[in-house]
């Protein structure tokens, strides 16, 4: 029975020239995407299903045909195939064409006509290089905050970072909705004006207010954009629309409208998101349902921040700060950098190790939002992050820590449901005599420092609606009477990342130093949340950092063979390697670590640079090196090559010696032990003796030129296993004088040879796409 053929390589291997016949047949059977989609339409009789199939699957493809005549012709074919009326299909096509024209017009409009500014810079240009340089920055958020400070926005480093993450989140595909709260003139719009100046202008839609239906009917393209509504007051009618846009990521609205011929007909208005809606408000809370969808950003209203802002304004007035040209240059680089970011999914491979307290009802949505922040941060750093086999960006643990630092305060406030003003009022309440707190107090009893009476009133009302206070319901001449029914939980955030097995101690220290509280932590209990927090199997750990047996799945036993090393999950975030996995550039653990885990190490007395060259074997007098056939054996290696062999392999003259006429040199060692002894003695001499080695410098193709010859040293290492049941490996790396030996490359080669000896199966764990 012939082997199953999986691809053209198999076909060629099996059939050789005979493969042509198969390839020609396959070519004849090829179909384009539209043909494939048409063939997948629902069965006959299901008219509605087929019409929907046409609109959802076929029409988008038809719209990509440039020739309108071709589009019309395709409709005729589809009408016949699906037994649908061609007139209905034409109407749908016309509507789609109209929408496309409107979108194109809007795109030009929003772009302000500066077409070249809306395009990402081309590779090879200076703009491109500068943008890429920025994207390769290890901490882009820090850089953004620094640049904002340079442009005059002082203080509030976390708010700036979080606002920036929110601003780019729609582009990243993980929309994070902010709401910005502070008193009037506290700098809400100043923050957003600054943050959004870093986002390409074509991606920002700025409005002072919105009417209820404005978003449904707008010609603006909302997808991937930031809609900046400068003041919520005045846009209350649009609150529902905004809520839907935030939660559903699109708007669908059906209305009865008059047609051109005067007849009434129903029209469906659709606006595709996702869109980040930036709202600033002096109100303490947004609509309750809106609030659960947003990250609140509370502007620093402290006197210290006021002082900093005043200082900055004064400095600028004195002529300090950044001029308009430099400002343009700074934001221009950010615009280009953001334009260059590619759409890509991001995964959080350690999500199962994230520990979250389960005491709050809102936790599910909040955890999802926290993970979205992690994903957006890793998406922003896509030029310095690893991707998995499916091209998804792999978030690092540092991304998680950065995200947690940014959202800690907003989440805590959300969970406590207390705004800064509410906190102030609560403090004033606690300062009241016990009797007043329990039996009732009025607004006039409270001494709230630095707060307007209206703010206090709002805070009391809000505390009552969230269950902290109870009010008697009768508003007398001095207002309501309130009683304190529950104290805000003195809870800390309690989110943290469990250490990997074996890292428990270090991780504990790290956590302590980062000040992330752990009191009351419990693993997530919700089964549905467990589904949302996925990840490669068998890495679950209990509270003590011990592996959880139950986390393993039955089929894992089949996939993990012999001495498995799970490379993906534990070390996916480690960087610094030159080579990646097939196409998808998945990162692996450094060979040095893998070797150490299996008990393999360099033998220092052979490989240490400090080894003293034996007497009589000095540079320039090659002595043994020229005469000893074992030493000569290594001289035919080309410059830049790395050879890894056991003494036995060398003794047997793998390939080279025997191929030279099949004669073993007269003074060739008697056995492999002698090879080993001679190399132990020769190693330091080889490392310090220049010899002639081949060097391939041919530029022609195919290779016809004889190799060049250059001087080089042979760096020798000897690797052995602590298990003592395997033969050690000799490494010969030939390098030119002045060119250092790439130790990592050597380790990679050693690892390639240790793997079969140790029977290691490197199974690169496919990270489940649970977040998709």
């Amino acid at each position, binding site marked *: 029975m012939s082997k199953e*053929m999986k691809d053209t390589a198999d076909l*060629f291997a099996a059939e050789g020239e005979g493969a042509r016949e198969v390839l020609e047949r396959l070519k004849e059977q090829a179909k384009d995407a539209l043909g494939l989609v048409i063939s997948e339409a629902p069965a006959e009789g299901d008219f509605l299903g087929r019409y929907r199939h046409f609109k959802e699957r076929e029409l988008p493809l038809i719209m990509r045909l440039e020739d309108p005549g071709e589009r019309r012709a395709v409709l005729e074919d589809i009408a016949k195939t699906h037994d649908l009326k061609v007139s209905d299909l034409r109407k749908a096509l016309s509507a789609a064409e109209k929408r496309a024209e409107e979108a194109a017009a809007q795109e030009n409009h929003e772009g302000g006509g500066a077409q070249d500014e809306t395009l990402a810079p081309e590779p090879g240009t200076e703009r491109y290089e500068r943008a890429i340089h920025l994207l390769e920055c290890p901490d882009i958020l820090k850089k953004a905050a620094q640049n904002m400070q340079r442009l005059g926005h002082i203080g509030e480093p976390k708010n700036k970072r979080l606002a920036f993450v929110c601003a780019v989140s729609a582009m990243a595909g993980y929309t994070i909705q902010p709401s910005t709260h502070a008193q009037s003139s506290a700098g809400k719009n100043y923050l957003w004006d600054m943050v959004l100046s870093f986002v390409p202008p074509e991606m920002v839609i700025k409005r002072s207010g919105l009417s209820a239906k404005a978003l449904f009917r707008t010609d603006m393209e909302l997808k991937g954009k930031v809609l900046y509504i400068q003041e919520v007051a005045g846009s209350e009618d649009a609150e529902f629309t905004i809520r839907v846009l935030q939660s559903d990521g699109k708007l669908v609205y059906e209305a009865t409208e008059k047609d051109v011929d005067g007849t009434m007909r129903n029209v469906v208005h659709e606006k595709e998101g996702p869109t980040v809606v930036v709202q600033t408000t002096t109100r303490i809370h947004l609509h309750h349902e809106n609030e659960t969808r947003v990250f609140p950003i509370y502007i620093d209203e402290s006197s210290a921040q006021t002082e900093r802002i005043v200082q900055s304004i004064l400095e600028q007035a004195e002529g300090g700060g950044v001029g308009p040209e430099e400002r343009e240059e700074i934001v221009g680089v950010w615009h280009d950098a953001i334009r260059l970011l590619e759409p890509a999914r991001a995964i959080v491979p350690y999500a199962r190790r994230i520990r979250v307290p389960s005491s709050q009802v809102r936790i599910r949505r909040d955890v999802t939002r926290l993970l979205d922040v992690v994903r957006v941060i890793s998406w922003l750093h896509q030029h310095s992050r690893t991707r998995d086999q499916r091209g998804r960006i792999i978030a690092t643990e540092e991304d998680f820590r950065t995200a947690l630092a940014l959202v800690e305060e907003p989440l805590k406030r959300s969970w406590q449901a207390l705004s800064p003003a509410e906190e102030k009022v609560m403090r004033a309440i606690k300062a009241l005599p016990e009797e007043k707190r329990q039996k009732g107090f009025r607004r006039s009893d409270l001494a709230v420092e630095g707060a307007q009476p209206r703010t206090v009133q709002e805070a009391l009302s809000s505390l009552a609606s969230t269950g902290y206070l109870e009010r008697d319901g009768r508003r007398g001449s001095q207002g309501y009477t309130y009683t304190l029914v529950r104290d805000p939980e003195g809870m800390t955030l309690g989110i943290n990342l469990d250490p990997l097995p074996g890292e428990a101690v270090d991780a504990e220290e790290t956590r302590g130093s980062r000040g992330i509280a752990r009191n009351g932590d419990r693993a997530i209990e919700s089964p549905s949340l467990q589904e949302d927090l996925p990840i490669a199997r068998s890495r679950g750990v209990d509270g003590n950092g011990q592996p959880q047996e139950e986390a393993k799945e039955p089929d894992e036993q089949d996939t993990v063979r012999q001495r498995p090393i799970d490379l993906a999950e534990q070390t996916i975030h480690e960087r610094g*390697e030159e080579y990646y996995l097939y196409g998808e550039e998945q990162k692996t653990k450094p060979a040095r670590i893998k070797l150490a885990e299996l008990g393999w190490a360099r033998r220092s007395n052979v490989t240490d640079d400090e080894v003293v060259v034996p007497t009589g074997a000095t540079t320039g007098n090659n002595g043994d090196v020229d005469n000893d056939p074992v030493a000569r054996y290594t001289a035919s290696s080309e410059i830049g090559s790395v050879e*890894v062999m056991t003494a036995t392999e060398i003794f047997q003259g793998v390939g080279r010696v025997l191929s030279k006429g099949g004669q073993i040199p007269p003074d060739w060692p008697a056995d492999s032990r002698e090879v080993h002894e001679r190399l132990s003695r020769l190693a330091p001499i080889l490392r310090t003796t220049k010899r002639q080695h081949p060097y391939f410098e041919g530029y022609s193709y195919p290779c016809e030129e004889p190799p060049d010859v250059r001087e080089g040293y042979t760096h020798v290492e000897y690797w052995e296993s602590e298990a003592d049941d395997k033969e050690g490996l000799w490494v010969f790396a030939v390098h030119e004088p002045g060119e250092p030996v790439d130790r990592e490359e050597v380790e990679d080669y050693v690892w390639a040879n240790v793997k079969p000896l140790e029977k290691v199966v490197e199974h690169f764990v496919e990270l489940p796409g649970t977040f998709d």
Partner: protein
Amino acid sequence: MSPFEELRERVDLAELAGRYTDLKASGRAFVGCCPHPEHDDEHPSFHVYPEGRFFCYGCRWHGDVTDLWSAVKGLKPGMEAGLDLAREFGVDVPTVSAEAKEKAERRRNLEADYLARAQGYHAALSRHPSVVEWWEGRGFGEGLREKFLLGAGASGAEATIPFWNRGRVHGLVRRKLEKDPDRKYLLPNKELFPLGYRPLFIPGRVREGMYVVEGYVDALALSALGYGVAAIGGTHPNAEQLKELRQFPGPLYVLPDADEEGEKAARRWVEELFPKALLCPPEYERKVTNDE
């Protein structure tokens, strides 16, 4: 004067074109078979005009000395080809930025380095009979191994494939031989590719009606049969690869791997490249006729 104007001025187009095709005077122009690597011109349709421009009436290719140099040398059109041409003819183009020069030089150096390494690994085949055996098993005899500079590396634990793109080596692909071969390809980091990204793997000529495949050995196999082919090198083409695919002449025939992931990926490609791309069914078994 721009570098390109300088080159038009200093490099004789007829002399340059004459290196690649026999030109004969015909009125004010010179005429010969088209030297474009992708145009098998049998009847002279390539005209060189005294103004320093050429036009092929067969394939509609046209341009100046830099365009000609770019095509015959497989260089990126524009500055990179211009710089290379300037170097060849000793033309000083002072207006070129030091940065552009440096980049072009870096690219050339990297390509040269990869080619040298590919040749080294190819030569190393003689020391690794197990790798030779593996190549033989895949249908790549000595002639094909030499043609594609297929090689052996890492003590015989790997087969190596030069990362071909239009006649140039953009990197080295290492194929581990021991187990699970589908996941055993190693590639340079994208920064180490001369272009700064991983281009398509194109082991032969670009022709009309290219095949598009997932794997490098798939592409080598098709190229060995004389077909034009490009490999994505995985299931997810990057933006530059998609751009390059869209620029190929004629339709694209996508040959998916016959597994779920491969078929899904190929389906995504044909949708992404609609209407240019066509999906072939993944049925690689040869139909046995009664005569066989």
